[in-house]
């Protein structure tokens, strides 16, 4: 089939830097193909994608060529370059231009100078197809994150692109909205033959939908293969003692991660269903559960956070967001609260952080009533909140200055301050970024920098709001290690998240937030194995064979115990 896009020996470096952002990248995308590009943040995916869209190409030194339908990129007409290559950016919010949904949809067609009758027909058709007609007259500011990104996709599709490029479109979305979005892309590809080039961290749902997967690292393509062959490809790399294997494996779907060690004829398992079949076919499964771990107990310890029957609403006439919420966290414990978007998880954190006052019930921090903390003493080396949007923490010109501002609150001498900054930067692997402007960092790096600033405040209790938002799988592993380390130091961590896999690995206890209260607070093994839908891929794969195995690590360990049958 004809190539929609061909990239030949593309090398790129940003003006002032000598390091190559892209190093001799060559690949092609056939018409109607669904190609997924993945890799750690900072591997050059975004640079590559932006170079593919002429209007968004970053300034720098470029070598090599990009062909669109056989025409060199430079030779495309302005109109063709704008309309034929559709580009959806990462942040759902800042891509929207107009204040009304219908006007946003029409924006691209207006730019192309289409007559009103044509715009009316196309907008109507597209709004119908995407189910946008229900919020067609709404203001764009009033939409949910998922709706916003769907609107962005629809407004790009209205220009009838031949190639659709999406740069981490689901990074800021909750899992349900993300899965809807991916399903829509899949449908576009299968039913309309739309060529899709997608960059994603979360491969669980994307990989089964894709025809090909390209893995990148340090500006190079390290693998370009069919999704079923990824496992085999990784094994080849391991034989060559490639240090990248654990990094790449970490981002793979649960089924791939669990069964990576075992040889299997044909394509490896990708989905939960295939994983289940593989487990049933190749393992005897006599040993049902792992020997009980020497788990930490927090029963006797002092309570760091204690909420009793807390009720909260924003306005008197509005319904309650917290409806008799109760929660306790012991010193040094990691507690995660899971729940859907808009369920009030963030409000719960704000109430605990003293940013909102409940109208009934009691909140105690460190055994003391929250109202007893005066003049901001609640936040003096006591309680800190990592907000959902890391950008809200940055005030200064460089990361170092931001860090210094926080450190000054705790340490008196400049020498101590610099010493602490060095330590935190090393801990979070942020040393190379200290002199950069916080906004110039990638999403994952911003998240880490925000965490660094918070850690410099030396909190005893750390509240985290969606800490994994925008992080790649590798960075998530780093965060898990860090959180466990902090917990060992006696710091209490309370996080709200919808990242099931992350919570299963990191927490001592997990709870579900629903209808204004925390329900079913339990150890992760119990919590996730009791749930059928709100649970990890590993648990879904193994629930019939094993007892309370909820992380990929636990399932792999049990598989090893049982031994592989051919």
């Amino acid at each position, binding site marked *: 089939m004809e190539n929609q896009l061909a990239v030949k020996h593309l090398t790129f470096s940003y003006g002032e830097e000598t390091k190559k952002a892209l190093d001799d990248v060559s690949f092609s995308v056939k018409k109607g193909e669904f190609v997924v590009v993945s890799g750690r943040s900072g591997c050059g995916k975004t640079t590559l994608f932006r170079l593919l*869209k002429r*209007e*968004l190409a970053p300034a720098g030194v470029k070598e090599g060529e990009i062909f669109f339908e056989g025409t060199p990129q430079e030779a495309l007409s*302005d*109109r063709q370059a*704008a*309309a034929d290559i*559709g*580009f959806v*950016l990462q*942040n759902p*919010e800042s*891509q*929207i*231009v*107009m*204040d*009304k949904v*219908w*006007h946003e949809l029409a*924006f*691209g*067609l*207006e*730019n*192309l*100078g*289409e*007559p*009103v009758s044509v*715009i009316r027909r196309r907008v109507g058709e597209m709004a119908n197809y995407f189910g946008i007609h229900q*919020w*067609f007259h709404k*203001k*764009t*500011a009033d939409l949910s994150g998922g709706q916003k990104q769907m609107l*962005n996709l629809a407004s*790009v599709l209205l*220009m009838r692109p031949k190639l659709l490029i999406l740069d981490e479109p689901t990074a800021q979305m909750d899992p349900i909205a993300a899965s809807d979005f991916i399903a829509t892309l899949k449908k576009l590809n299968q039913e309309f033959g739309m060529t899709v080039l997608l960059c994603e961290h979360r491969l669980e749902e994307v990989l089964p939908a894709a025809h090909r997967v390209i893995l990148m690292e340090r500006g190079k393509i390290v693998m370009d293969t069919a999704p079923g062959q990824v496992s085999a490809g990784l094994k080849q790399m391991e034989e060559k003692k490639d240090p990248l294997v654990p990094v790449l494996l970490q981002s793979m779907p649960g089924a791939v991660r669990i069964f990576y060690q075992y040889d299997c004829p044909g394509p490896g398992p990708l989905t939960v269903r295939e994983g289940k079949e593989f487990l049933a076919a190749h393992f005897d499964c006599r040993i049902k559960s792992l020997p009980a771990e020497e788990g930490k107990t927090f029963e006797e310890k002092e309570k760091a956070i204690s909420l009793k029957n807390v009720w909260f609403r924003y306005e008197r006439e509005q319904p309650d967001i917290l409806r008799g919420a109760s929660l306790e966290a012991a010193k040094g414990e990691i507690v995660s609260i899971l729940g859907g978007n808009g369920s009030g998880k963030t409000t719960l954190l*704000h109430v605990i*952080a*003293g*940013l909102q006052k409940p109208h009934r019930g009691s909140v105690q921090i460190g055994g003391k009533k929250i109202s007893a903390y005066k*003049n*901001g003493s609640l*936040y*003096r080396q006591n309680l*800190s*909140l990592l*907000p959902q*949007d890391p*950008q*809200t923490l*940055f*005030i200064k010109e460089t990361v170092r200055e931001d860090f210094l501002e*926080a450190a000054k*609150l705790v340490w008196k001498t400049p020498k101590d301050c610099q010493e602490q900054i060095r330590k935190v930067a090393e801990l979070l692997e942020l040393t190379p970024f200290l002199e950069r402007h916080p906004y110039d960092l990638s999403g994952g790096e911003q998240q880490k920098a925000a965490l660094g*600033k*918070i850690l410099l*405040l030396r909190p005893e209790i750390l509240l985290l709001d969606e800490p994994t938002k925008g992080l790649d799988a590798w960075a998530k592993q780093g965060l898990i290690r860090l959180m466990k380390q902090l917990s060992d130091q006696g710091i209490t961590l309370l996080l709200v998240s919808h990242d099931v896999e992350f919570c299963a690995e990191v927490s001592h206890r997990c709870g579900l937030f629903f209808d204004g209260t925390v329900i079913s607070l339990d150890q992760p093994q119990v919590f996730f194995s009791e749930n059928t839908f709100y649970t990890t891929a590993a648990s879904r794969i193994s629930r019939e064979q094993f007892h309370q195995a909820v992380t990929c690590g636990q399932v792999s360990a049990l598989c090893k115990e049982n031994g592989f049958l051919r």
Partner: protein
Amino acid sequence: MKNHTDVLIVSQNEVPSFGYLCRSVTNSSDGRRELEVRAAPSRKRSGMEIFMNEFSRRHPAVLFLYYLLVLFLTMFAVHPAALAASFGGAFLFYLAENGVKTAMKDLAYYCGVFLLLAVLNPIFSHNGETVLFFMNDRPVTMEAILYGAAMAAMIVSVIFWCKCYQTVLTTDKVLYLFGKTVPRLSLVLSMSLRFFPLLKEQAGRIGKAQKAMGMYAKDSLTDRLLFHVRLFDSLLTWMLENAVETADSMKARGYGLKGRSHFSLFRFEKRDGTLLGAMGILTLGTGAAAIGGMYRFHYYPGISAMQTGLWAVASDLLLVLLFLLPFLIDVKEKILWKISLR
């Protein structure tokens, strides 16, 4: 999926049950009867489309013209009949738009405003022939009181028209009206309309995040002041950063190509033409009546006599009709709606 072309609908009656609409249909290919079930539309008005009264649904250009006309007439009217008609029209329209409860509450408030304004004139103005009494050795005349009342009526009428204006000529309609003449302006306006709520939201987020860090969290005035300076600083950076991405998104969708067109949801329909026609006839009629001296009226030095006779009544009626147009259109639609439900 079932092919809709080979389904013959035998019964148009949809039976609502448990939130679903059911009707029986016959499959034309094999003649079997089937029950078609689809979700009933939600009755809730969940802010998806702002509810508009009938008058507000007319074409923005017609609405704009009407407003120009009405405000012009009200502001330059001195004739008591014209003022009464303007106030009556504005208030009844406001009542139709906002309901009896709100309208009555507002009426009570503006009665107070009316009295206050009406009393002001005789205090400062002592013109007029008919002296009623002396206050601080200065005459208080009937003419001054009546003139004050007329001016107060004019101001209150304009206020009520303007209160309705917000629901009738919403920002998207204004944008549409001036978008063609000043395209850049309309784009900038639309973008800023989108931006302000975002900015407000982000300011709230930054405020919370900074407070929870314990920065300037003391209750003193200096801390609070410094806190806001920081907030503004951070907001500015955020705004610039976001503007870059918005600009990217605009470029990616071909902004800046030659020959940009303008899309809007508004269509000029027959009923808009009818309204425009009615407005034209009424304006011509009142214009003719004005030239004929039917609205001539003065307060000083003495109150002029009211014109009487058939022509005077007819010309007053023209004004009443003109001012009552929005109310009549709303009421007519409400009645028609009620009848159609039977």
